[in-house]
């Protein structure tokens, strides 16, 4: 019997009405119970299903509304405790749930591992062993292809670069150990090690930050266009859609028939939310009510707030602006072709840090500035889309997090005054984990490095 708990998304990748995250192993139930708001899953009967919410323990926020099935050993597929979490379809929510589970102590399953466990625990008939082996091979090959495809060439180079930095540091420590009289190199000190690992840690953190952005790139930046009636919201949308290549997709099966439009603005994919609503009624707030619109606004990654240059700034505007103050907002003053009635100074004061752009959409003026502002919001001004490296594969993110943890262990050890050759254990681990991301786990390269970096011998 295996001792660890594994998890994976067990429905096919892509759009579906629901997606299932499966856990198997001794801690399947207890891990799920910790994340689940609803009944105490530790107490529920086997083979029952429960409604509730998955809460991210780090932020306390709800990640997803789910139905959870609890099935206890031995009458399960793997003959271990199994929990299946039914999420809404779509990659975002199911990946989010998977990430939370991984952060809570489960390990990402290897390709075919559920089936392998089922077999090893005697669940699958002997005659199927052959099929199990084929499945492992096929799934591994496919997973490797997918992972390789998902890995940007830049990411791979970045990881290789980090590994090389670590390898040189490791070799330096090793040469001090194995050749204590070798005088050509300064003895590695805690300060030097601190510096080297700090640089690598910062880089890992930076790559992990891009995971969020990578996700946005995949899913699109949820964008809501809001404003009072007749300010030019649909002109704005049309402008964005016409300026850029739009992909219109029907998303059936959700509560309303919403048409989402994807547009690519200077490399930033926008998913325009509730655009159908805008088209139909010109006013999202009016159509679905203030409460619901707040909900929509909350889900948005970016809000385009449109105002009329030829109209006064009123109380409604002020309230709305206040409500979205903490979010990503771009204020657009449209219709500059009209006579000015808007108090721009007051607006700018209320808008605070948020960028303010002026347009005359009907004359196609100011669209460039708007697009620049959108790109700037996403890339935070200091990143050029061309230089970004994105990590998106869940496995890669998971391994990066493990690498980060190992490196932090190393740094904690240093702070405690642990000798470097012991700290080395955690640094080596970091190097190995990073190697798993790019599929390079050959241990001998440290020894190769040692002899190419230093002139050793008797």
């Amino acid at each position: 019997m295996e001792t660890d708990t594994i998890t994976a998304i067990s429905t096919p990748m892509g759009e579906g009405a629901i997606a299932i995250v499966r856990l198997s192993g001794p801690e399947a139930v207890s891990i799920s119970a910790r994340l689940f708001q609803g009944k105490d899953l530790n107490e529920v009967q086997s083979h029952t299903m429960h409604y509730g919410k998955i809460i991210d323990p780090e932020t306390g926020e709800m990640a997803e509304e789910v139905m959870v099935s609890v099935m206890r050993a031995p009458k399960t597929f793997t003959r271990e405790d199994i929990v299946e979490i039914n999420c809404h379809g779509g990659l975002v929510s199911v990946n989010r749930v998977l990430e939370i589970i991984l952060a809570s102590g489960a390990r990402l399953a290897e390709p075919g591992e559920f089936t392998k466990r089922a077999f090893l625990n005697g669940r699958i008939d002997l005659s199927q062993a052959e099929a199990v082996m084929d499945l492992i091979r096929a799934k591994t090959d496919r997973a490797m292809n997918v992972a390789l495809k998902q890995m940007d060439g830049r990411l791979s180079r970045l990881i290789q670069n980090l590994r090389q930095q670590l390898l040189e540091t490791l070799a330096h420590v090793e040469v001090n150990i194995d050749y204590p009289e070798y005088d050509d190199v300064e003895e590695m000190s805690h300060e030097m090690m601190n510096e080297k690992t700090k640089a690598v840690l910062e880089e890992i953190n930076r790559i992990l930050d891009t995971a969020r952005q990578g996700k946005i790139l995949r899913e699109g930046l949820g964008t809501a266009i809001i404003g009072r009636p007749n300010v030019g919201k649909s002109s704005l949308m049309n402008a964005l859609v016409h300026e850029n290549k739009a992909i219109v997709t029907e998303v059936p099966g959700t509560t309303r028939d919403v048409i989402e439009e994807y547009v690519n603005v200077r490399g930033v994919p926008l998913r325009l939310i509730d655009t159908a609503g805008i088209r139909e009624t010109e006013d999202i707030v009016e159509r679905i009510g203030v409460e619901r619109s707040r909900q929509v606004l909350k889900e948005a990654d970016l809000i385009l707030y449109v105002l009329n240059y030829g109209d006064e700034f009123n109380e409604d505007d002020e309230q709305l602006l206040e409500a979205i103050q903490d979010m990503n907002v771009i204020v657009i003053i449209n219709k500059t072709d009209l006579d000015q009635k808007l108090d721009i100074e007051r607006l700018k004061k209320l808008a605070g840090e948020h960028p303010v752009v002026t347009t005359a959409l009907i004359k196609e003026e100011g669209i460039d500035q708007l697009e620049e502002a959108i790109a700037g919001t996403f890339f935070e001004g200091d990143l050029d889309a061309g230089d970004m490296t994105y990590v998106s594969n869940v496995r890669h993110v998971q391994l990066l997090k493990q690498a980060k943890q190992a490196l932090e262990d190393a740094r904690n050890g240093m702070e405690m005054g642990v000798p470097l050759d012991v700290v080395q254990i955690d640094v080596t681990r970091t190097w190995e984990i990073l190697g798993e991301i790019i599929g390079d786990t050959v241990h001998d390269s440290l020894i190769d490095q040692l002899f190419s970096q230093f002139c050793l011998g008797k």
Partner: protein
Amino acid sequence: MTYDAGHYDVIVVGAGHAGVEAGLAAARRGAKTLMLSLNLDLVAFMPCNPSIGGPAKGIVVREVDALGGAMGKVIDKTHIQMRLLNTRKGPAVRALRAQADKPLYIKEMKRVLESQENLTMKQAMVEKVLVEDDQVKGVVTETKAAYYAPTVIITTGTFMRGRVIIGDLSYESGPNNQRSTVTLSEQLEELGIEMVRFKTGTPMRVNSRTIDYSKTEIQPGEEEPRSFSYETTEFITDQIPCWLTYTNEETHRIINENLGLSAMYSGAIKGTGPRYCPSIEDKIVRFNDKPRHQVFLEPEGRDTEEVYVQGMSTSMPESVQYEMMRTVPGLENAEIMRSGYAIEYDSVVPTQLWPTLELKKISGLFTAGQLNGTSGYEEAAGQGLMAGINAAAKALDLDPLVLDRSQGYIGVMIDDLVTKGTNEPYRLLTSRAEFRLMLRHDNADLRLTEIGYQHGLIPEDRYERFQEKKRLIEEEKKRLDKVILKETEEVQAVIEEAGGSALKDAIRAIDLLKRPEMKYEHIERVTPSDVSLPADVKEQVEIQIKYAGYIKKAVEQIDRMKKMETKKIPENIDYDAINGLATEARDRLKKVRPLSVGQASRVSGVNPADVSILLVYIEQGNIARVSGE
């Protein structure tokens, strides 16, 4: 025609560092053992550097000692200098190194061999191994003596088709102008054993009276009594220093100008040399930006003037050796007593061996030491010991012994050799061990004495002393776990002296010791033990408590590894019958024939999916057997 010269359980061919440990271990296990050496005056001869130990290697010497071997005890009696290396680093990488008195080492080892029960020594050149139906039967010497035994251990080092090269001079020879052995190597090839050509080298030896030591830096030994063996009670404190000098640009110019004459660069040498032991010409070619290289002058003994010029291993013609050496400060007028030379030799591709060091192809035939592609006296001794233990086991139907990677550097080395093989002479490095923190020089006895005792290698009285040591360590750890230290003036004073911050509350002694600045000697002052504890017990208590967190992590890793090691692969497995194995993995597995899934996972070219598939296939077999019963 041969004559029947006698019957034995184990025959050891060769009496170098592998051979002597093999013979001693086999005899100690109770096997009637014959050891055949080319020259009985040169048993355990050191053909290269006059030193034993160092990082990783020194730990092997202690492991050999904990399993009843001789190397540690003999060097303890015959060294001219001993030092503990890496004292400012963590406990895992500390190691002893001794400068040896070469002639004395031979003399003492010969005494040990001659006094070993069950062991017969003879001088002879073995011409061939007797093999019938892939089963070894004995050996035949060139004088036509046929010795019979069910197991034979070959430990012929660099003698297999050995060829010495000095510049453009080259001749068939083992080290130190001893005869090389040609027929044995040819016969192994005929038997289908794959051989590979390796190369190593040694520097010149110079006359001490012609060295101007005033131009060099002294490298003294340590006064502190130290020993490799856990059993040594008498220490040599009268230490002889080594000396340090450097090459310079002039040396490098001469070498560069004469590169074409070096056997290494003229194409005369075909064998692969070790990267960690390059010749001086290699160093200058590969690291041409280095302005100087270290040269250590190491005496070869107390009663000899010969000095080993460490750092100048070379295959240059003698005239160039003189020219370059005399540019080095202190060696301007040095007289060479023996020239440096390169030596090429045949070695066995070690993936053809089981982890017991028995050849897969020929039952009862074992190989150990440099013949298996390693280099170094310690590596040889470790393998010799294991081959001796296992050959005796085979002959007498006792338990074999295979150490795993968590039990010792010996285990790491043999697993590396038989699982991955090596494409250059293999040397142990601490970084080869994934559980370095567990494979310390201070705990080799704690790791291995019990195993040695169970395999009949450790006498009763030593085992009792070991048990007592273990008991003292455990009791002292328990005691410190119970003692609560209050924030008294006395305690605070000791902490302050150690450089720590004062206690705010009472603390358990064990937790105070975990602080980085605290040592056992500090704790002992505020809460002394009732019994007087030996220094090595105190050291253990301190290390085990201080590194408990890391040790625990390592133990968990080891447990995971062991789970895979216990999943055995049937010897008759048919890799061609397993669908889904990648072609490369299948080829490698067929060649290495790993004994466990754990070992299979370390074979290069075998990826995790292949391991899963293998696991499923094996389980399928197990299930089939169970349901068939």
